């Protein structure tokens, strides 16, 4: 890339025209992709002005009257908004605390498996659920955890009393754990791939030297493998924290029910519910404002995370 930049000397007007004409086919190639980005990514940005407007169906986005910060003022008094905001942060933090270490530990274990074939097999199995939608996975896990599900039946064999009180899907105290658990089930295997690739990149001579020095395998993991992938772990964690406002719409939307709204409703599901949930509402301004609120926080956090990562010498996060 550095060589490319040094080539692009400042161009005069005629030179620039010539240069553009010379590359006309590349601009032609960009025509469709740019149309895509303008229509489906940038026009919605134009629509963000609704956050400061009172939306009227017959006047459209441009014609609706401005009302300043009224929607944002409404947020401060809307109890459901506050709950959703709080839940977004809490659920995301739970995912980081309990979910983030799992793929790392799994990768370390997969890497140590004795038989090559079995290692491949477990990796293949553990990764599979990632490729299914949350609609499908919700079907699978609602059945497992539901009222006539396997898990309740197993519990009934151990303690019938516990089984009669079984209520994981609709209980406020257990629903978040259920979310974290099923998220780990679906995504942890996929998460191992990046760590396994990093482990594969560690120079094998370190391990040889360690064996000569009489290190056992746990010591090798501790002194070679983990330090070897520490850079990737830190970057991944940083990015994960940066995306904290994305608390998992697909999963929650397909799993939650009204009894657990107080603990599971996040900003994304909240915006969807108040707009489309009770028949299509005409109040598009307030949910746009909530979305803008979320996206601005999101943007600031991600940019901060990226710039810290870049300063740490990792220019890799595009």
């Amino acid at each position, binding site marked *: 890339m550095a060589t490319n930049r040094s080539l692009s000397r400042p161009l005069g007007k005629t030179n620039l025209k010539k240069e553009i004409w010379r590359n006309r*086919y*590349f601009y032609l190639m960009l025509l469709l992709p740019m149309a895509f980005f303008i229509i489906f990514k940038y026009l*919605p940005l134009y629509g963000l002005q609704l956050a400061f407007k009172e939306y009227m169906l017959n006047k459209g986005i441009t014609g609706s009257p401005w009302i300043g910060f009224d929607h944002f003022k409404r947020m401060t008094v809307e109890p459901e908004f506050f709950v959703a905001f709080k839940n977004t942060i809490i659920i995301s933090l739970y995912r980081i605390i309990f979910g983030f270490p799992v793929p790392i530990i799994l990768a370390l274990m997969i890497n140590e498996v004795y*038989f090559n074939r*079995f290692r491949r097999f477990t990796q293949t199995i553990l990764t599979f659920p990632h490729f299914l939608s949350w609609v499908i996975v919700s*079907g699978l896990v609602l059945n497992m955890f539901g009222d006539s599900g396997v898990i309740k*039946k*197993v519990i009934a064999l151990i303690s019938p009393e516990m089984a009669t009180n079984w209520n994981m899907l609709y209980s406020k105290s257990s629903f978040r754990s259920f979310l974290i658990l099923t998220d780990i089930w679906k995504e942890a295997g996929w998460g191992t*791939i990046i760590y396994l690739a990093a482990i594969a990149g560690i120079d094998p001579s370190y391990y040889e030297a360690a064996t000569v020095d009489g290190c056992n395998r746990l010591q090798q993991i501790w002194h070679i493998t983990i330090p070897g992938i520490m850079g990737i772990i830190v970057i991944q964690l940083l990015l994960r924290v940066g995306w904290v406002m994305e608390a998992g719409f697909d999963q929650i939307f397909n799993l939650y029910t009204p009894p657990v709204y107080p603990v599971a409703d996040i900003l994304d599901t909240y915006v969807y519910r108040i707009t489309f949930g009770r028949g299509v509402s005409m109040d598009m301004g307030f949910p746009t404002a909530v979305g803008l609120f979320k996206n601005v926080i999101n943007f600031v956090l991600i940019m901060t995370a990226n710039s810290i990562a870049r300063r740490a010498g990792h220019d890799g996060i595009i």
Partner: protein
Amino acid sequence: MADTTQKAPLDIKVPKKNRIRRFSVGDGILLLIMSLLSLSVILPFYNAVLVSLVPQAVYVRSPLLLWPKEVLWDNYRFIFDFRLIWHGIGNSIFITLVGTFYSMLLTVLCAYALTKNIPGRRAIRFLIVFTMYFSGGIIPYFLIINGIGLTNSLWSMILPTGINVFYMLIVSNFFTGIPPSLEESAKIDGAGDFTILIRIILPLSLPILATFALYYAVDKWNEWWHGLLFIRKVEKQPLQLILRQIIQDAQFLSQQLLPGQEKPDVYGDSIKMAAVVVTMFPIMMLYPFLQRYFLSGLTLGAVKE
């Protein structure tokens, strides 16, 4: 960077460190743990298939079902008699085929043009990458696509999901790693830019193109969110959305029955699981055969810019 991009690791190989080491107790314990973990991933699938093959009444009554006493295909027969399933399958196949082609076309064009040092390249790149980090949110998105007139059209699930920026940047990185001498010699032979892309670049990139075509196809098959927002007519909904209604809405199946059609125990888990199995069937069948493509995506992504 070029050397890592050229040989995209399609097989994730863990280095063979001292292979001669003996099988220890620790290895045994690890083997056991890994077996249990694999089993915990397989179990929900096994359970779903099992439940879909027994009558609802048997399923509810049995304390713990591990093996079906008799296999009954009634649930599947019901699902396949249900006309909306066929609409859903047709819609999802259409979205997957057309959508994957459309997405690959846009992705390849964009990725290749971005490797060229054309005036305005940095600005264009910035505009594209920016969309990864900031969006208008669901409401403006809904209003714009609604305004274009895509509501109740299958295209509402295809056109807005054209380029996944992350995939596109990885493909672009890969193209950067192709030695420029190949393009230059083609240029001397009088090949135009499009010809070079089609004749030189694409054939050299087949594995990575296959990987991302597969990812796009899986994404399109799994598509339900755009359907939820933009498709009101049930006949136009993708299979995933039909499945979602079967799972979530106890009334849905009975409301959609044709007059005179036999009403089974439609509230039952057995029918739901049969629908789940039908919906995930294509991915389940492809996965074992294409697993090296399925598993290679993130390692390609780990390639530094």
